[in-house]
Every structure is written in structure tokens, then in C-alpha cells.
């Protein structure tokens, strides 16, 4: 198992796609701050909305360029930007691509044949792949969080930066790390089941974008019974995670739901890998 992990982490280090993905997410964070700055400039009347054909709107409504006193950047704060990054699918979509590439290329290239039947159990091979996937997700989220926080300083200024509630930032980021790891293992399960790069990426992004719509539908179906399925789906927890005043009920539910989905996805993936032929 140690040898397998050694090889997997070597592959991870050598994967250019990983570095490109992390860089892309970092640039997205920068762009997000840029958008907020633009909104603030319009709000403060420094730039007219619609100048050079650029119109900024917020949730379908035009941004007031009449010189509103408030700053959206300050209102949202660093934790709000983190929420946009993690809860708004930016991180999820890039992670879906990265995990799919890392997992499915073994099947796409046939390199998995260099491991299967070489004295290791298939379960060991699967879990040796899962460990770097989890580490990849944590590193990816950590870089995104660090970049987002650091970018806050030039965009918000020293005063705004210091006004941040770092406890909230730490708690929110911690939750996102937890949910992110579970989502990465779900992506890995999708990759193992599809074993096709295009299908794996598509299905993973589909799960990310549309599963919460499905759970919302289920919430309606079970409304009369007082049961809310979305409370037990990790992607719903990811997007609805509070950014302040974290209720203990959410913390407990978050940890339990994450544990259940983590174990379920890992067990299903390992079971399929153990039973299915390698082509």
C-alpha cells in the first residue's frame, strides 16, 4: 500500500492539469474581487452602469449608480467571497475536472493494467488512489482559500481586512473542506463507474449542478411528511452552509451526513472496482 501511495503521489505531483486547475481557481477569485470592485465603483457613482456597454446587475436587478453610500465589498467581506467560491460551484466544477482527470486517465490510458494483477488487492489499489484524491481536494481548497483571503487585503484595504471575523472564516472554510472531501470521493465514484473522461466530467458536473434541484423537488414531495431530503445531501450542505453563527445542529448534521456519504461513496467505488473487469 505504501508503494502504491508513493506512486500515486508521484503522479499527482507530475500532473500539469492539477497546477493549471489551481491557477484557474485562483484567477477566478481575483475576477470575483474585480467584479465586486466594479459594483462598488458603480454604486459610488465613479463609473456609470452601462459605460462601454458593460452593465452590471445583481440578481436580475440593475445596480444603482446613483451614488449609494454602502460598499458591497465591505458588506460581503472575505467570508462572502469564500462563499461565492465554494458554494457557488466555482471550486466544485474545477475539482470535478481535476478529480476526473486524475482517476479516469488510469483507465483511459490503460495504465491501470500496470497495477492490477501485480500482487496488490484491488481494494488496496482503489484506496491508494482515493488518498491522493482527498489530499488533492484539500490542497486545492486550501490554495483557493488562501488566495481569496490574501486578495482581500489589496481589494478591501487594511481596515476592511482587519474587520474580518476570522473565526467565521475558519469555521466556514473548515466546513467547506469537510464537504469538499466528500464531494471529491463522490467524483471518484463517478469516475470509477464511468471510466470515460468525457462522461466522468459531465456526470460529475451534472451531479454538482443539478442534484440540489433534485433534492429541492424531493423536499416538495416529502413536504407533507415533514421530511427534508436536502438536509441530508452534502452538496446542499455545501451551498447552504452558514457564514456566521454556526448552529450546533448544522455542525452535527454536517459531520454525520459527510461521514455517511464519504463511507458510502468509497465503499461503492471500491466494490465496483473489485468486481468489474479492467479493459
Amino acid at each position: 500500500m505504501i508503494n502504491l501511495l508513493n506512486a500515486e503521489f508521484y503522479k499527482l505531483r507530475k500532473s500539469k492539469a492539477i497546477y493549471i486547475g489551481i491557477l484557474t481557481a485562483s484567477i477566478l477569485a481575483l475576477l470575483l474581487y474585480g467584479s465586486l470592485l466594479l459594483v462598488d465603483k458603480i454604486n459610488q457613482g465613479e463609473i456609470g452602469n452601462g459605460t462601454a456597454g458593460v452593465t452590471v446587475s445583481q440578481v436580475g436587478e440593475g445596480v444603482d449608480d446613483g451614488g449609494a453610500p454602502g460598499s458591497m465589498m465591505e458588506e460581503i467581506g472575505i467570508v462572502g467571497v469564500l462563499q461565492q467560491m465554494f458554494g457557488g460551484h466555482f471550486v466544485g466544477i474545477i475539482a470535478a475536472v481535476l478529480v476526473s482527470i486524475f482517476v479516469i486517465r488510469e483507465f483511459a490510458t490503460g495504465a491501470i493494467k500496470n497495477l492490477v494483477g501485480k500482487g496488490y488487492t484491488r481494494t488496496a489499489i482503489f484506496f491508494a488512489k482515493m488518498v491522493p484524491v482527498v489530499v488533492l481536494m484539500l490542497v486545492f481548497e486550501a490554495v483557493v482559500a488562501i488566495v481569496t483571503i490574501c486578495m482581500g487585503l489589496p481589494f478591501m484595504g487594511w481596515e476592511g481586512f482587519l474587520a474580518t471575523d476570522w473565526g467565521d472564516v475558519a469555521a466556514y472554510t473548515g466546513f467547506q473542506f469537510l464537504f469538499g472531501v466528500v464531494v471529491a470521493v463522490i467524483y471518484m465514484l463517478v469516475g470509477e463507474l464511468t471510466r470515460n473522461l468525457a462522461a466522468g466530467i459531465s456526470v460529475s458536473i451534472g451531479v454538482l449542478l443539478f442534484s440540489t434541484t433534485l433534492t429541492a423537488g424531493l423536499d416538495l414531495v416529502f413536504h407533507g411528511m415533514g421530511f427534508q431530503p436536502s438536509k441530508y445531501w452534502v452538496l446542499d450542505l455545501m451551498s447552504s452552509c452558514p457564514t456566521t453563527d454556526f448552529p450546533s445542529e448544522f455542525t452535527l448534521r454536517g459531520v454525520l451526513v459527510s461521514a455517511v456519504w464519504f463511507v458510502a461513496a468509497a465503499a461503492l467505488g471500491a466494490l465496483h472496482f473489485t468486481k468489474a473487469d479492467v479493459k
Partner: protein
Amino acid sequence: MDYALRTDGITKIYGKHTVVDHVSMHVKKGDIYGFIGKNGAGKTTFMRIVAGLAVPAAGSMELFGSGDLERQRQRLGTLIEQPGLYGTMTARDNLEVVRRSLGIARKQAVDEMLEFVGLSQAGEKKVKNFSLGMKQRLGIGIALFRSPDFLILDEPINGLDPEGIKEVRDLLSKLNKEKQITILISSHILGELSKIATKYGIIKEGALIEEFAAEELKSRCKRCVKLVVDDAQRAVTILEEKCHILQYDVPKEGVIRVFDGLDHPWVINRELVEGGIQLKESYLAGQDLEGSFMDLLGGAPND
């Protein structure tokens, strides 16, 4: 007898289609076993089962006389279908991944293997820029990395130029002779296979129809008079009684191959016609290897 591989009734079914049908193969230690069959005959699937990549629906298997396959498979080196390579990595990195996964401590092993398969100059080149032949050689390098006792190679010379084919053939011969590595190899290039194989197995529609030694193949390829007649049984009686010919065989109904009396074939023809045999064809044939395989496979190879 010492077998590197012995299977008994190995069967693989995909849906309603039996891809490998009760194959009982015997590969002795030290053999270079040529595994021959048309496309879709079941060669690759059978090799994948032996390598542990696919699970058989029925049958049993022993590697080196042991049923502990997981353990014995550590003694295998495999190259099945295309080599499993990471195109965006260099050749050196590809081998480094294998070195680490196999737990080989010596870092120099990577350079030694690159040298061994003739890729030392291309070690820093990305594999996606390799020619097919270079990829095959790197694939063979990966298969050889843990000094296996038994190599399983599926079409290893596919796509290689004549020089590359010769290199691979020489390499395999060397490994077999110097390191006593047993080799199970499939190929469509029968002429090349015949230069190294010591034993053959013919698979047709999933079933292993025949296993025979290289010497037997040579005897099958002897020069002969090939006769196509309406009644082979009566014709054979005439050959024995009138022409005193005892060296012949009947490879299939209505076809006789006569290995004796080749200097006066008209005598054979005359006696058969006078004996009331309808002689449809009579010609001198020096059956080559491909012809012999085609007889067994029942059609053009690789069709």
C-alpha cells in the same frame, strides 16, 4: 511436468456471447508459446484473465503450479493490448511510477531499463510524442521491470517497422534463452512468431482447438502433392496399395497431402483416375506457415 501456466476450462461470457470457451492451455516453463487466432477469437480476453484483469465465469487456473494467483501474479510481466502509458509524462517518469508502485528501491533501475529497451536517448521526451514502436518498447520495459518469470505479450510487434520487429524478436529470444523467462505471445505476424515460438496454441471462436510443438508445425509445412478428391477413403487405399505410398495425411474431408513420391506425381494421378476416383485437383504444394495456420483457422488470417 513444470508448467508456468495451466488452465482448465477457462470460460468468459459477455452477455449471451461466450468469448472464451473452456480453454485448457498448457504453457511449460521455458516455452515461448505462440497464441494464434483471428481478431475476436478470444486471445486478448484469455490473456486478460490470466493477468488478473478479468474474472472468468468458469474454470480454474494455476500459475507455476500454484492456485494462489494473487501471489504468483507478482511473477508476471504483461503487455496486453496497447501499453498503459501516461502521454503527458516522459518515458523516465512513466518508468518511475512503475518503479515506485512495485517498491523497487534502486533508482538506477529506471535508467537501466531505458537503456535495455533502447530508449535512453528518449528518456526526457514526453510519451505522447513517441512513435508506436517506441511506445511498444516502453511497454515491454514496464512489463520487464520486476524481472518477471513469465511474460504475457499481446501483439507486441503490432505497428513496428521491420527493424523494430527484429529488435523485439531478438529481445524476446534473449530473455528466453539467457533468463529462462517463459513467454506467452500472441501475434498476427505468423512468420515472425514462427521464428521464436517453441509451442503453439490455436484459438478459434473462443475455443482452444489445438496445441502443438514447433517441430510438429515444421513437419506440417513439408512439400507435398495436394489432392482434392471425391472419396478420400478410397483414394487413400489406392495410394497405399497401388503406389505404395504411406506418408500422407487427410487434413480435411476430400483433401489428401502426399509427402512421398513427389518426383513422379503423374503416377499418383493415373492410379487414382484408373481406380475410379474423381480427381478434382492435383498440384505440388510446399505449404508455408501461414497456409498451415489458415488450414487450422479455416480462412484467411486476421480476416
